[in-house]
């Protein structure tokens, strides 16, 4: 894949969409083959590769006891990017989570919790987005926001690999679909 391109991974349940994304992240090792980033094996790149990717998995990866702002600030800090409260709030507003920033995540709906996870993409400033079923639990408005965020990311030279059954409605000249067989 080149800069500005996207890949949509589809397939039946159990076809290996999540496994593929986790392999691309480096969370699990492939049975065969290698994953390369800019010509080098991701395992040889180590932490350097981690600075290039953002992964949003099946589970949102947020803490129920923390507020949206706390979740975002801590996640950013752990990734070496320190952001203040106002930056976190701006990212949450951009993803459509307004007036819910200071409520513990456990009190939010599944869709709102997913928006917090997606807000990580905005503060991460990573080149490659790996998104697993990100449109699940999102309403139409949120889906539109996510699509526009991906478009914005691609137009800035980023890459996106998305596992989803939904139509991403992205510019097909810069992307491709990969159907996994069971």
């Amino acid at each position, binding site marked *: 894949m080149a800069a500005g391109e996207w890949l949509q991974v589809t397939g039946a349940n159990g076809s290996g969409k999540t496994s593929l994304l986790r392999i691309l992240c480096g*969370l699990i090792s492939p049975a065969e083959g290698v994953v390369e980033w800019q010509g080098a094996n991701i395992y040889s790149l180590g932490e350097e590769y*981690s600075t290039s990717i953002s992964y949003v998995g099946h589970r949102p990866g947020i803490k129920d006891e923390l507020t949206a702002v706390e979740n975002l600030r801590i996640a950013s800090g752990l990734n070496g990017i320190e952001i203040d409260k106002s930056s976190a709030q701006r990212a949450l507003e951009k993803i459509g989570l307004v007036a819910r920033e200071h409520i513990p995540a456990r009190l939010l709906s599944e869709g709102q919790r997913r928006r917090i996870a997606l807000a990580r993409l905005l503060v991460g400033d990573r080149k490659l987005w790996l998104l697993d079923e990100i449109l699940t639990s999102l309403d139409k408005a949120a889906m539109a926001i996510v699509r526009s965020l991906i478009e914005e990311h691609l137009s800035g030279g980023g890459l996106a690999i998305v596992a989803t059954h939904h139509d991403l409605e992205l510019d097909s000249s810069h992307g491709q679909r990969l159907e996994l067989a069971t």
Partner: protein
Amino acid sequence: MLRWIVWRDLLLAWRRRADALSTLFFFVIVASLFPLGIGPETELLRSIGPGVVWVAALLASMLSLGRLFANDYQDGTLEQLLLTPQPLYFVVLGKVVAQWITSELPLICIAPLLGVQFGLSNETLLILIVGLLLGTPVLSLIGSVGAALTLGLRGGSVLVAILVLPLYIPVLIFGAGAVEASVIGQTAASHLYLLAAITVLAVIFAPWATAAALRISIE
């Protein structure tokens, strides 16, 4: 990075105070049952006191091990931690430091009060505190390896106990031995030096082993 992981886990522990309090309560109850069961024989209590306090601390620390990675594993934050651009060694170390502060430090603070129940002198209580300060980080560090290895397994807490308790024995021997040496008027220095040596080794090797175990468990 280390600062953020410690801060995150401390904040979470504060929001889930009942977990830390249950560990402390367990420690107090277990250590207090012995004087009640054995009776008021001062010499007998003084001789068993060090061992009882150490065993109670050891069992109490086991209670918090199950939570060390399990919550992060369930909500997906462990995956995010594994993908941070930092060596996993420091992620593990940060989590262990936070676990020690929230689960072990309160035990150390209350241990002198429990020691008084066993008729331990002020000097002996000081040795008990120093021993716990040196030994409890080892309990957390070794425990983290067991917690990582049993992550996601059914009956993981029992497995952790089976895996980890035998490895706690040297800490128990030297920790309780230091206090016993003080009780009979001998120097506890040698026991404490050995505990310190074990702590140094555990700080070097345990987070590395835990990181490897986490990578296996997450697959």
